């Protein structure tokens, strides 16, 4: 009953902001929100997904559903409720949560989704897989400052058929532990989250990072680095056997088990064309310098002609 009422009220809305069409991997979508006051924040967070033309397949609507405008905000995806009603920032958090889930669901048949950061330059990618808290976003941002282009800080997508890594260029989610290293990325003005925002994250457009090479297109992977943040540690990059990298990549993917044999072959092919490393570091800039130098060396080696027999 409540859902039907929410759907009916949705039809009657005067929308404060209607987004352009966005595309994230296999999901094409748009957003409408009743309150134009958060358009700057939402627009900045979603800007990397903007596409020219195209019809959205999925529509999100975010609005205050209470009859007395008391702040009972809801999120509808194609008319169906997402999460539970709450304050405006809570509704926005449900929106971001569901968007990420919907992107994964729309893409999992075509891609192996790796829990990783990823950047690229000169037509090849560095993949940075790891669990939450290992320093993926901080290292990704530091590499963007070194001129790399952005693929993702969360879930780049490996296309098994081509072996190319596709971007999922969601806004950088800067956790509280990374704020000191990335202090200059703190959102300001209209791009700040709305009052009451509960997540301990800054949402940052990766293209706003000084020195960033923008958003990368699909590219092959030439380097895989498993980062580990250790406070106070010196930066240390060491080779990792490729077979171990296969196991770690499988463990750090969202949907390896969907098609395990095909994904195993795809991951083996990926590491076969890449150098694989473990990285220990307590300082993002130093880590980025070491990774960038190793990546450039790997690219030079890849361009060397094979020795004559």
């Amino acid at each position, binding site marked *: 009953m409540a859902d039907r009422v929410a759907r009916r009220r949705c039809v009657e809305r005067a929308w404060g902001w209607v987004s352009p069409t966005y595309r994230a991997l296999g999901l094409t979508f748009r957003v409408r929100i009743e309150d134009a006051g958060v358009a700057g924040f939402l627009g900045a967070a979603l800007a990397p997904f903007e596409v020219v033309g195209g019809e959205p397949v999925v529509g999100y609507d975010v609005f205050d559903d209470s009859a007395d405008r008391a702040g009972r905000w809801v999120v509808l995806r194609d008319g169906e409720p997402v999460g539970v009603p709450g304050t405006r920032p809570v509704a926005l958090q449900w929106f971001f949560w569901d968007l990420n889930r919907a992107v994964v669901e729309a893409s999992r048949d075509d891609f192996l989704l790796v829990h990783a950061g990823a950047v690229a330059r000169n037509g090849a990618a560095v993949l940075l897989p790891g669990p939450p808290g290992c320093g993926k976003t901080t290292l990704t941002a530091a590499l963007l400052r070194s001129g790399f282009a952005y693929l993702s800080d969360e879930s780049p997508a490996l296309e098994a058929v081509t072996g190319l890594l596709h971007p999922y260029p969601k806004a950088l989610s800067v956790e509280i532990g990374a704020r000191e290293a990335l202090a200059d990325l703190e959102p300001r003005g209209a791009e700040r989250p709305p009052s009451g925002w509960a997540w301990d994250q800054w949402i940052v457009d990766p293209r706003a990072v000084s020195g960033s090479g923008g958003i990368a297109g699909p590219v092959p992977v030439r380097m895989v680095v498993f980062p580990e943040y250790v406070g106070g540690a010196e930066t240390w990059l060491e080779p990792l056997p490729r077979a171990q990298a296969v196991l770690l990549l499988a463990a750090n993917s969202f949907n390896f088990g969907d098609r*395990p044999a095909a994904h195993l072959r795809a991951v083996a092919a990926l590491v076969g064309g890449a150098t694989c490393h473990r990285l220990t570091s307590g300082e993002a800039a130093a880590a980025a310098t070491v990774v960038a130098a190793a990546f450039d060396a790997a690219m030079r080696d890849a361009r060397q002609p094979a020795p004559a027999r």
Partner: protein
Amino acid sequence: MTADAIGPGTVVHVEPAVVSVDVDGELVVLDERTGDLHLLDPMGSLVFRCLGSGTLGEIAADFVEEVGGDPDAVLADVVALVRDLRTRGLVGFGEP
């Protein structure tokens, strides 16, 4: 057959649901029934590739001929590996 009864006359096959890929000479082995991945070292990978081609005694003899080593020690290593693979559910006894 029990794992304890494995010997030089035993024939072993890789289970049909097991898939492997070679990565720099090491096999990464997937059991599609469980989704589990296993990593075999280079020697284990070499033996794994030979399973089904003869008895364990014949495989061990071929191994000694190619790589060298004490025949009894090599056979013991092959049997120990097969016991481990059997425990992990990756191989069975006899023809598949």
